[in-house]
């Protein structure tokens, strides 16, 4: 059963997906941005009220201040409830902020504008930069910062040291906030995935222990008792044995093996064990790609079917898996009736390939070979050899 983590947004550079509401660390960031917006608004309103009699047109300054209060209220409400993260909202915010910055031109005197008083929006105009960095990473942060800087330059009708310094700080802020946001979101996602994996592994271990201590022991005892019995009790015992083997294989299987596309050949062959089929494997795992494991298992299953058909119902079969320097070798030997030498060759010449031909076909497709030796009364030995990359 492949492991399924909880639904997580796609990781990496794919198209950004915007959930209806943000949550987790992003929601905290948006709330911090809302707080920043509110505090900077207070600063701006304080300055407008304090300097109202110095402006060229105080009415324009007051109207601008009122508009800033309205924008801040809307953005803060959306941010606190986790709904301010749409590019359209942030884009509108950035556009309105630029207009309000430009309102400094009619509101302030030329002297005030040319470097002797901050713009009406001053530090409040950094808000959209931070929001854009949340939504569109460092690039969006830098772009919106550049546009806000442009608006300040237009108000000043040029640039001076102060504009450049605060502008550079704004651009750097946009870039850094954007980069850190990407990083933090990725870390949060990885942490959640790791926690989910850990929880799944822990749950798996708990189930494994419980099954191992209970069900498997009883199945094992029933299997064993059945082997000393006869009739339907023996059948029941054999069934219990098969279920025990299947359950053990399930508990042993790695949750990620299906996805990685590689399988332990020894595990795959152990699954073929039956009452009359003895499967012997080395103690080390022999990991091959899943297709090779499946094809080889299928070939061995066909060889086992062949034994039942030709060697007689009482024949026993032994399967041996060996890993040599440059090849894998699977030997399937039965103690059945055997065949007259040349019978197989004759069958192949006559075009009656049957099971042996199918086994040869599977191995040939994998680049391997099949050798069948048999003699009357001495059983049959099928040897499957598959070259593998030497280590």
């Amino acid at each position, binding site marked *: 059963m492949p492991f399924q983590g909880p639904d997580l947004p796609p990781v990496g550079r794919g198209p950004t997906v915007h959930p209806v509401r943000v949550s987790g660390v992003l929601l905290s960031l948006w709330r911090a941005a809302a707080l920043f917006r509110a505090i900077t608004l207070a600063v701006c309103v304080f300055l407008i009220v304090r300097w109202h009699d110095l402006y060229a047109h105080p009415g324009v300054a007051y109207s601008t201040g009122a508009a800033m209060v309205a924008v801040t209220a809307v953005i803060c409400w959306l941010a606190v409830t986790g709904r301010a993260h749409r590019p359209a909202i942030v884009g509108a915010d950035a556009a309105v902020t630029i207009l309000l910055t430009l309102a400094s031109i009619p509101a302030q005197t030329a002297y005030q504008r040319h470097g002797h008083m901050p713009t009406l929006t001053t530090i409040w105009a950094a808000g959209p930069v931070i929001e854009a960095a949340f939504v569109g990473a460092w690039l969006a942060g830098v772009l919106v910062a550049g546009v806000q800087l442009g608006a300040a330059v237009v108000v000043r009708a040029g640039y001076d040291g102060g504009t450049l310094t605060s502008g550079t700080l704004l651009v750097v802020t946009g870039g850094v906030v954007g980069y850190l946001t990407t990083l933090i979101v990725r870390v949060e996602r990885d942490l959640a995935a790791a926690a989910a994996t850990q929880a799944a592994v822990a749950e798996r271990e708990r189930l494994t222990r419980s099954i*191992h*201590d209970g069900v*498997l*022991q*009883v199945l*094992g*005892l029933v*299997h*064993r008792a059945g*082997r*000393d019995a006869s009739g339907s009790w023996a059948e029941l015992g054999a069934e219990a*044995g098969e279920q*025990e*083997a299947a359950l*053990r*294989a399930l508990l*042993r299987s790695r949750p990620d093996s299906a996805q990685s596309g590689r399988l332990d050949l*020894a*595990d795959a062959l*152990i699954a073929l*064990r039956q009452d009359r089929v*003895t499967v*012997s*494997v*080395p*103690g*080390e*795992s022999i990991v091959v790609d899943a297709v090779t494991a499946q094809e080889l298992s299928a070939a061995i299953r066909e060889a086992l079917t062949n034994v039942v058909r030709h060697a007689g119902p009482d024949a*026993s*079969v*032994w399967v*041996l*898996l*060996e*890993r*040599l*320097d440059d090849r894998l070798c699977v*030997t399937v*030997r039965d*103690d059945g009736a055997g065949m007259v030498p040349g019978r197989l060759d004759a069958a192949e010449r006559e075009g009656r390939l049957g099971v042996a031909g199918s086994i040869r076909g599977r191995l040939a497709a994998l680049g391997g070979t099949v050798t069948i030796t048999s003699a009357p009364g001495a059983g049959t*030995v099928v040897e499957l050899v598959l070259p593998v990359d030497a*280590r």
Partner: protein
Amino acid sequence: MTRVMIVDDHPIWRSALERELDAAGYDVVGALGDGESALRVAPAARPDVVLMDLQLPGLSGVDAAAALVESDPSVRILMFSASGEDADVLAAVKVGARGYLVKSARTSELLEAVARTAAGEATFSPGLAALVLGEYRRIGRDEPSPTAMLTDREIEILRMVSTGLAARQIAERLVVSHRTVQNHIQNTLRKLQLHNRVELTRWAIDQGLAEE
């Protein structure tokens, strides 16, 4: 009378094994649920044969077997394992267990294996032969100059055992005595246990745990 000790953490298995061994005339000197108790009881109980489950809580079956052999090299340990625990069976055999038996074995097979182990013969099933053979193949691949190698005859015999041939059948095919075949088989196991001991010592020296 042969003294047998059973180590299995599952009460139903312990009582089933005890009943069968007792009925067959064995003296069951202990039936214990974990490796630690087995190590504590063994010096007083002095079992000839220990039937030990591979999966034990706490001290593993492999470690318990190693400790039992360490304190009394003459004790004969027969591991009792479920299907699919091959890597652990190999580890147990390397530290000195004389053989292993799958849990699904018939009562007759169990009694035969215990009798053979008591008589000092290795119970060489096809599974065990394949594990030993596989371990030599691995050593041959991993070590630049292998310190444990099989002769061609030993490989031939191990492959025959692995594919289900009995010692008597092998003797017939190779035209040698039954005794010679048995000796070859015992040799492969002895060399592997020796190799394991050398490896452990070398590892201990590397880690600064032992004097050179």
